[in-house]
C-alpha cells in the first residue's frame, strides 16, 4: 500500500511516537539528551526530591561548557586550576556530582573531548541522523545539520526527559526554505542563515520545524549545515533540518559513538530513507536565490536586523511597521549608530571567533586564511579565538592555525561558550563593539552595554585586520 508522501520531519516524528493522546499531544521518545551545567541543576534536584531515577542513563551525555573560563585549566604540574567565580564553580561542581550520582557519562572540563555541547554531539557521533535530540539550550537546533530532529527545552523538560526519556509534544507545522543557485566567493553558510533570518524575521518560523532544501545545502559541508541549522531558533523555529546524505554518513563513520558493524549497515539503510518524499507538502514555503546573498552583518539588537556589508544603517522610518520603527530607534540608540552610516566604516574594539554557531575546524580555517601574514589593527583591543572543543583545538594546532592567530595578535583560548553570552569572564565592555561569530546580538548579550555585530568567521578576521567592519572579499586573493 502506498503511503501518503511525508516530509523528513514527519518521518522522524512518526518513528518516535510512543502514544498519541486524545488531547492532540503525543508522547515522543527521545534518543539523545545532552546536558550542561547551567540548565540542569534544578532538574536533578527535582529528581532527588521526588525520589525519581534517570530512566535511560546511557542516552544522556553531560559536558560543561557555559561557565568555563577559556584560560588554561591546568597548572604547569598538570593540576586542575580552580574557577575563580564562586557561582560558576558551584554550578560546575553540581554537574560533576549529579552525573555520576545518576549514572550519566560525563566529559570533564579537562578532557580533550570537552567542548560546547552542540560541537561535541556531532563530533562524538552521539548525535545521529533520524534521532530525536534535546538539550536545555535553544541552539540544540544545530544537530539538525546531520538530519536529526533536535530542539531546545527548558529545565522542567530536562527533568521530564531524565525521568521518562520522552516529552509530551504537539506536532509542529512544517516550513521549507529552498535555496537554489550557488553562493558566491566570500559568502558562507553564516551569511546565508543571517540573510534567511532577515527574510523570515525572528518570529517567521514560530510553531514550525524548518527543512532547508535545495542545491546550496546539498553542496554544503556538514559543518556549514550545522551552522545554518544552529540559528533556526533565531528565526523562531525550534528545530531546523537538512536531509542526511553521503557526506553526513562519511562524517559520522568511525566516530566514538557511531554505530559499528552490522548496526552501522542497518542504521545506514534507514538513514537513506530520511528525506522528504516527492509530493510531500509543507505548511509554509520560502524560496531564496543564493546569488543574491552578500557577506552579511547585523546592525541592530535582533538577529533579523541584517544588511549586506556594502550597505548602510537603515533609517527607522524605512520600516512599514510602526512598532519595528520604534524598535529600530531603540536599537540604533543602543548600538550608537546613525541612519545612513556605512557599515564598512564602523570601527570595532573587540573580536570574538567562537560559539556553537562558528567554532568548528572549517570556521577556524576560514578565519586563519584571512589572518595569515597579517596583524590585527591597533584599535582592536581584545580579540579571542575559542575553539568549539578540545578536539577542534588539537586539530587546529596540528594544522598550525594557532600560530597564525597568535602571530596576528589574537588570543588562542580553551574551548567553551565564552563571549557568546559572557557567563564566564569573557565579556565585552559596555559601549564597545564586538564583531562576533556567535548567534545573538541582543541587548547586553555579550556583557551589560555590549554592542554586537554578527558575522561569519572570515568577516570577523577581516574586521580584526582593518579595525572596522569590512567586506572580506577585499582581503581575499
Amino acid at each position, binding site marked *: 500500500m502506498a503511503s501518503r508522501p511525508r516530509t523528513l520531519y514527519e518521518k522522524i516524528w512518526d518513528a518516535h511516537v510512543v502514544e498519541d*493522546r486524545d488531547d492532540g499531544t503525543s508522547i515522543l*521518545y527521545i534518543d539523545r539528551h545532552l546536558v550542561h551545567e547551567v*540548565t540542569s541543576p534544578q532538574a536533578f534536584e527535582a529528581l532527588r526530591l521526588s525520589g525519581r531515577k534517570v530512566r535511560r542513563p546511557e542516552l544522556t551525555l553531560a559536558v560543561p561548557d557555559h561557565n568555563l573560563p577559556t584560560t588554561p585549566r591546568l597548572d604547569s604540574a598538570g593540576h586542575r586550576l580552580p574557577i575563580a567565580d564562586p557561582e560558576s564553580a558551584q554550578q560546575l561542581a553540581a554537574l560533576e556530582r549529579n552525573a555520576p550520582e545518576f549514572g550519566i557519562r560525563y566529559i570533564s572540563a579537562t578532557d580533550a573531548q570537552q567542548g560546547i555541547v552542540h560541537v561535541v554531539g556531532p563530533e562524538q557521533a552521539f548525535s545521529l541522523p533520524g534521532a530525536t535530540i534535546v538539550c536545555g539550550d535553544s541552539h540544540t537546533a544545530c544537530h539538525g545539520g546531520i538530519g536529526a530532529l533536535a530542539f531546545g527545552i*527548558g529545565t522542567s523538560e530536562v527533568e521530564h526527559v531524565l525521568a521518562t526519556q520522552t516529552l509530551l509534544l504537539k506536532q509542529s507545522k512544517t516550513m521549507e526554505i529552498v535555496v537554489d543557485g550557488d553562493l558566491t566567493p566570500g559568502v558562507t553558510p553564516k551569511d546565508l542563515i543571517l540573510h534567511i533570518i532577515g527574510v523570515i524575521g525572528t518570529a517567521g518560523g*514560530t510553531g514550525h520545524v524548518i527543512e532547508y532544501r535545495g542545491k546550496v545545502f546539498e553542496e554544503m559541508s556538514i559543518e556549514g549545515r550545522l551552522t545554518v541549522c544552529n540559528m533556526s531558533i533565531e528565526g523562531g523555529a525550534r528545530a531546523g533540518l537538512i536531509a542526511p546524505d553521503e557526506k553526513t554518513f562519511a562524517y559520522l563513520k568511525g566516530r566514538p559513538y557511531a554505530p559499528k558493524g552490522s548496526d552501522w549497515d542497518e542504521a545506514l539503510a534507514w538513514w537513506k530513507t530520511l528525506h522528504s518524499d516527492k509530493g510531500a507538502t509543507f505548511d509554509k514555503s520560502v524560496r531564496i536565490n543564493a546569488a543574491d546573498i552578500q557577506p552579511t552583518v547585523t546592525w541592530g539588537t535582533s538577529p533579523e536586523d541584517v544588511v549586506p556589508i556594502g550597505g548602510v544603517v537603515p533609517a527607522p522610518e524605512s520600516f512599514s511597521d510602526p512598532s519595528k520603527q520604534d524598535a529600530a530607534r531603540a536599537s540604533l540608540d543602543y548600538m550608537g549608530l546613525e541612519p545612513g552610516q556605512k557599515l564598512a566604516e564602523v570601527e570595532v574594539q573587540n573580536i570574538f571567533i567562537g560559539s556553537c554557531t562558528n567554532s568548528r575546524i572549517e570556521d577556524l580555517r576560514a578565519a586563519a586564511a584571512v589572518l595569515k601574514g597579517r596583524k590585527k589593527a591597533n584599535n582592536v583591543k581584545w580579540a579571542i579565538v575559542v575553539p568549539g572543543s578540545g578536539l577542534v583545538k588539537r586539530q587546529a594546532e596540528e594544522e598550525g592555525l594557532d600560530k597564525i592567530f597568535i602571530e596576528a595578535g589574537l588570543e588562542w583560548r580553551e574551548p567553551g561558550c565564552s563571549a557568546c553570552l559572557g557567563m564566564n569572564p569573557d565579556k565585552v565592555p559596555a559601549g564597545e563593539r564586538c564583531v562576533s561569530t556567535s548567534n545573538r546580538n541582543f541587548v547586553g548579550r555579550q556583557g551589560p552595554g555590549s554592542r554586537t555585530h554578527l558575522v561569519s568567521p572570515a568577516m570577523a578576521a577581516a574586521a580584526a585586520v582593518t579595525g572596522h567592519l569590512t567586506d572580506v572579499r577585499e582581503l581575499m586573493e
Partner: protein
Amino acid sequence: MEPVSEVSGRAIPFGRKNIDTDIIIPAHWLKTISREGLGRGAFQALREDPANIFDQEEFKGAPILIAGDNFGCGSSREHAAWALLDMGIKAVIAPSFSDIFSGNAFKNGILTVVLPQEQVDRLLEVARTDPINIDLTTQTVTTPFQDRFAFEIDPFRKHCLLNGLDEVGLTLSRDEAIAGYETMQAAQMPWFAKGTGLAA
C-alpha cells in the same frame, strides 16, 4: 504545581515586541542552582531607568504582564519563567509567544494568553488605571468596562493548569507504553538504544 483557575489584579502595561529571554533575565543570573530569587534580576537592564514601569508603585507585585508580539524569544532558559514568577507574575498576555517560552511558562503554572493586537492594545490602555481579570475556566479576559475577550488554550494545558498536575507523574503513569516502545526500538534500531554504551 499549584492549580490555576483565575488570575485577577493589576496588569503591567509593558507592550514591547520581541522581548527576548536575555532581557527578561540576563545570563549572569543563570549561575544559580536554585529556582528562587530570580525576580531581583528580572528586566535588569530596563530597570536601570528610574522611570521604568516595573518599579512604579502601583505595578509592584502585579500578577499580570501585558507584552507585544513574540514574547520570550531567544534562549530556552526556564529562568525567564522563574524570574517572572518570583516577581509575582502569574499570567502574561501578548499577541504571540515564542514556542519554548510558552512551554516553560506553562510548566511553572504561568498562564500565557494570546489575544489579537487590537485587544491587547485595549488592555494596555485599561491596565494604566484599572485591574484585569483572566478566567481560565471560561477562557475569557474581562475588564471593569464590559470588555470581554475570549482566548484559545490547548485543552491539555488547560486541564493541567486547572488541576495543578505534575507532567512527569502523568507520563510515568504510561510506563507500559514507553517500555513497549523501548523493546521495539532495541530490536529494530539497536544503534539508538545503545547510546553512550556504543563506545564501551
